[in-house]
């Protein structure tokens, strides 16, 4: 057992896993806001674009997308570095879930708030950026937190295109030690610890943002089923909206 835990391979792998999580999360966040805002636009064409992005990339498993980037596209002359293929696939996939969170949260801001912005004669842009979005962001945090954990887990697939993340290193270590059960048990615990640390970070952010709205922190039970791997169940932020 000690030869597994002391192996530098796993620690190096864990660092790569965290890097991948970070890069993909940043890409996903940008895509989520871009397409989520399109999805809650007043213009039908903008909503259609948002809808298409979400339906397409939510329907496509990140693994399939990543293999397609890595194995298929080079055949038509488009070549990615492995890291880029991995981050792109994960970012596009989780960006689609995130876009639904953004759209759902904006829709979950009470209509009365929108009406107040009209009564104050704000421009559409001001309504969104000064009133609706600031109130929607705290609603987004719990589901975003769940998505981040899901993303951390999902990064394990990059080992299949030879990126040396934690899972990849585990396979190497298994090959050299022949102890499959033990190696992967240790690796599971490592993922678990990383997820718990992220969880603490997210809780802290949630508590801060709830204070912005002057609300009491919500219990996790209400948000746990936000269904981050599900195709956009947004029960945690008040339903799908329309």
């Amino acid at each position: 057992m000690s030869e597994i835990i002391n192996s530098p391979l796993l620690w190096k792998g864990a660092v790569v896993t965290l890097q991948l999580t970070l890069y993909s999360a940043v890409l996903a966040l940008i895509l989520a806001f871009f397409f989520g805002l399109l999805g809650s636009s007043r213009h039908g064409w903008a909503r259609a674009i948002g809808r298409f992005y979400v339906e397409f990339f939510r329907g496509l498993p990140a693994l399939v997308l990543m293999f397609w980037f890595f194995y298929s596209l080079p055949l038509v002359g488009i070549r990615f570095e492995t890291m880029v293929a991995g981050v792109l696939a994960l970012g596009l996939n989780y960006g689609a879930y995130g876009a639904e969170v953004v759209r759902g949260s904006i829709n979950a801001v009470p209509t009365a708030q929108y009406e107040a912005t009209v009564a104050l004669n704000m421009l559409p842009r001001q309504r969104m950026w000064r009133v609706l979005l600031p109130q929607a962001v705290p609603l987004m945090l719990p589901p975003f937190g769940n998505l981040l954990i899901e993303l951390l887990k999902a990064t394990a697939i990059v080992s299949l295109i030879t990126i040396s993340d934690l899972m990849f290193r585990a396979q190497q270590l298994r090959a050299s030690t022949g102890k499959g059960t033990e190696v992967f048990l240790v690796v599971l615990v490592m993922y678990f610890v990383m997820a718990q640390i992220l969880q603490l970070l997210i809780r802290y952010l949630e508590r801060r943002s709830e204070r912005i709205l002057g609300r009491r922190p919500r219990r996790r039970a209400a948000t746990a089923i936000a269904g981050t791997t599900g195709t956009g169940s947004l029960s945690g932020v008040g339903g799908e909206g329309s």
Partner: protein
Amino acid sequence: MTWDWSYAGDLVGPLLGGLRLTIAATALGYVLALALGLVWAILRRSPNVVLNQAVRWVIEFIRSTPLLVQLVFLFYALPTTGIQFSAFWTGVIGLGVHYSTYISEVYRAGIENVPRGQWEACTALNLPRSRVWFAVVLPQAIRKVIPTLGNYLIALFKDSPLLLVITVPEVMRVAYTEGGKSGFLEPFTVTAALFVIVSVLSSILIRRLEGRYAII
């Protein structure tokens, strides 16, 4: 290299064969997840603090670790128990156990949404414990979470390609094998198309369900 329609056409047969296995694994894994999820949900309501907390952390552990790693772990660990599972059944167990943790949370939310008065009425009628659960609480709880449960079915389906790492010849592995012979462009593109089609169709179905059943 350019897109070859006749090659793509030839692939549809084998890929649909792989998809059949994908769907079988999805269906069996989902049934396991629904059943095991219920067990977790009921155990979580146990007044025994030790049991309660133990179950809580088991769920948390399974939920926050990658399915891919769990599958590989099961692949090596299950045989050490002395029971031989085929790769397919190892995959079904992996999918089922992983998703049971999500589904138990869905049940839990549904159960918490059943009004307190329903429990009190059961006490007042002196109903036995099993009737309280299976005749009163669960029927009300599950009805409201059917759309959410449906979403997890789609999610499980989309995770099923991971079974390729434990050599299950599901659709993705078929595509990979075929691609190794004559190029990866067509196999993965057709597979991607299959996934998008199935996912979009099923999410339309879910939206219908949401119309019929109240969303929690």
